């Protein structure tokens, strides 16, 4: 078989064109996949809004956001989001108190004071914590924490905002630790060496140089942990007692937005008023978590820009 040079060139050209075409196809598919996630998010918002519309017109958005009682199946029916929003915020606040010091402390330890196999083992354990199903955390809370809280504080019941908040705090730890640890890891070594060269101890280097440099990343981790805590459902449903009251302290029972949706959705009249109001609760929750994630993203972006300079 004889092959002349022009033929060879032609075949090469053909392969290159084909490759370019294949690349274009793949690129558009990947582009589509990226776009799809945005479309899905927008669709969720639109869908929530459409389903919640009946509740918003019949009950009134103002009434929902200001009324302080939640009796969705009572007589008369009262749909007030205030106890639910306050409940969610209180539980999340308790979680914040738990996961901020422990999470940042653990991240600093892993990033700055541990090394080798121990560091890797710690990271794996923390990743595993994130993989434990929330119902298992809830189960442990019911078995261990509820009686403990009841006896320790001499309460009539251990189903309190405190109980739910502590478990939520533990559940949010992996998020906070992983992201904070990444932020600490990203601090250039030159900063550490400079600080040590100036005579600072390791501890001084950590809290005067490394942690402040990574502060926006740590903040983003805390915000994402916050988003995780406020959106968690199963554990709070099992632990907080779900009484729809505006709590006077963390030792009282609270009802969260997520718990309300999960507990009531299965039994409502589909397309009914109660159904629609539950979508309204979902919309409020969506708004809150969206704002938290957006804030975290903006802060992270600021940090990225700072290191790029």
């Amino acid at each position: 078989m004889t092959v002349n040079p022009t033929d060879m060139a032609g075949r090469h050209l053909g392969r290159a064109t084909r490759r370019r075409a294949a690349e274009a196809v793949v690129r558009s598919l990947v582009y589509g996949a990226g776009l799809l996630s945005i479309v899905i998010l927008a669709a969720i918002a639109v869908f929530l809004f459409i389903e919640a519309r009946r509740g918003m017109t019949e009950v009134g958005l103002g009434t929902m956001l200001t009324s302080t009682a939640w009796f969705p199946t009572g007589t008369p029916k009262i749909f007030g989001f205030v106890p639910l929003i306050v409940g969610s915020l209180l539980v999340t606040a308790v979680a914040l108190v738990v996961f901020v010091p422990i999470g940042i402390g653990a991240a600093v330890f892993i990033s700055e004071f541990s090394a080798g196999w121990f560091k890797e083992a710690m990271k794996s354990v923390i990743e595993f914590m994130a993989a434990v199903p929330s119902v298992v955390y809830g189960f442990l809370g019911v078995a261990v924490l509820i009686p403990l809280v009841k006896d320790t504080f001499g309460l009539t019941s251990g189903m309190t905002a405190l109980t739910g908040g502590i478990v939520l705090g533990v559940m949010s730890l992996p998020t906070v630790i992983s992201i904070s640890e990444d932020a600490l890891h990203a601090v250039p070594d030159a900063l550490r060496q400079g600080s040590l060269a100036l005579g600072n101890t390791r501890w001084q280097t950590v809290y005067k140089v490394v942690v402040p440099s990574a502060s926006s990343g740590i903040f983003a981790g805390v915000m994402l942990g916050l988003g995780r805590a406020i959106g968690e459902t199963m554990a709070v449903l099992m632990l907080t007692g779900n009484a729809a009251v505006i709590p006077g302290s963390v030792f009282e029972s609270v009802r969260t937005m997520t718990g309300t949706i999960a507990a009531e959705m299965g039994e409502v009249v589909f397309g009914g008023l109660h159904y629609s109001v539950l979508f309204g609760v979902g919309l409020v929750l969506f708004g809150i978590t969206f704002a938290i994630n957006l804030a975290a993203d903006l802060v992270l972006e600021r940090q990225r820009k700072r290191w790029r300079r």
Partner: protein
Amino acid sequence: MKVKKVMAFGLVAALALGAFGLTGCGTKAADSGSTGTTETAEAELTGTINIEGSDTLVNLSTAWSQEFMTENPGVMIAVKGGGSGTGIASLINKTVDYANASRKMKDEETEQAKANGVTPVEHTVARDGIAVIAHPSNAVADLTIEQIGKIYRGEIKNWKEVGGADKAIVILSRDSSSGTYEYFKEEVVGKDKNYASSAKLLPSTQAIVDETAANDGAIGYVGVGYVAPSIKVLKVEGVAASVESVLDGTYKISRGLYMYSNGEVSGAMKSFLDWILSPAGQKVVEDEGFVPVQ
């Protein structure tokens, strides 16, 4: 180079599969209606029955269907939970044959059904006695319905007001969506009244049993099937909750459990319902801790 190609191919394949999966979903719902066929009396019964609804009824329904399927190998019965509202919505959308419900259908749902061309027919398949429970150490042994109502409305706050120790009452209830919650509200708390807002609403009946066993101030209500040695059952109006006292009507707090169908049933669906109401089916009711209808 080669690896890249493989990855690209994998990506394309995954996306294509995803798209296929999305479009595939829409076509399924149409054919899941009743396929129960009437045969001659001697011929083997065949058909598929889809049941969905109340979580209270899930275990009972599963037990029924298992026994019925053993006797009639030609019949295929699928049982799903999800809640009374979920089941009724599916019945209205014609995607199930029977909807299990631990409450009666609401007017709004009946209207939706009519608008959709569905005629719901109610079948009472079992009864459930609601036991009022407290911690084993509680000295109170007997309450009137009036007293229980006052406790659940928050008018009585301390056990000493009903003859017990000086201890705050911790009110435990099912969630506002549960059929039991609504039944208890209608019959005990009062038609135009609301539960005390301090009532703790627990996500499951078992959670009420567990918390009552652990909390010496607690009061709760659960189906008689859930009564365990770890809790104390209070008499209501002097009568202890039991299958017998519910059956002879002396125990006052009991409710029906229902299955709804679209129109009158025939074929395998009718055989199944008839079997449920027969002594064999009602024996399963008792085994599962509920009260038979007769």
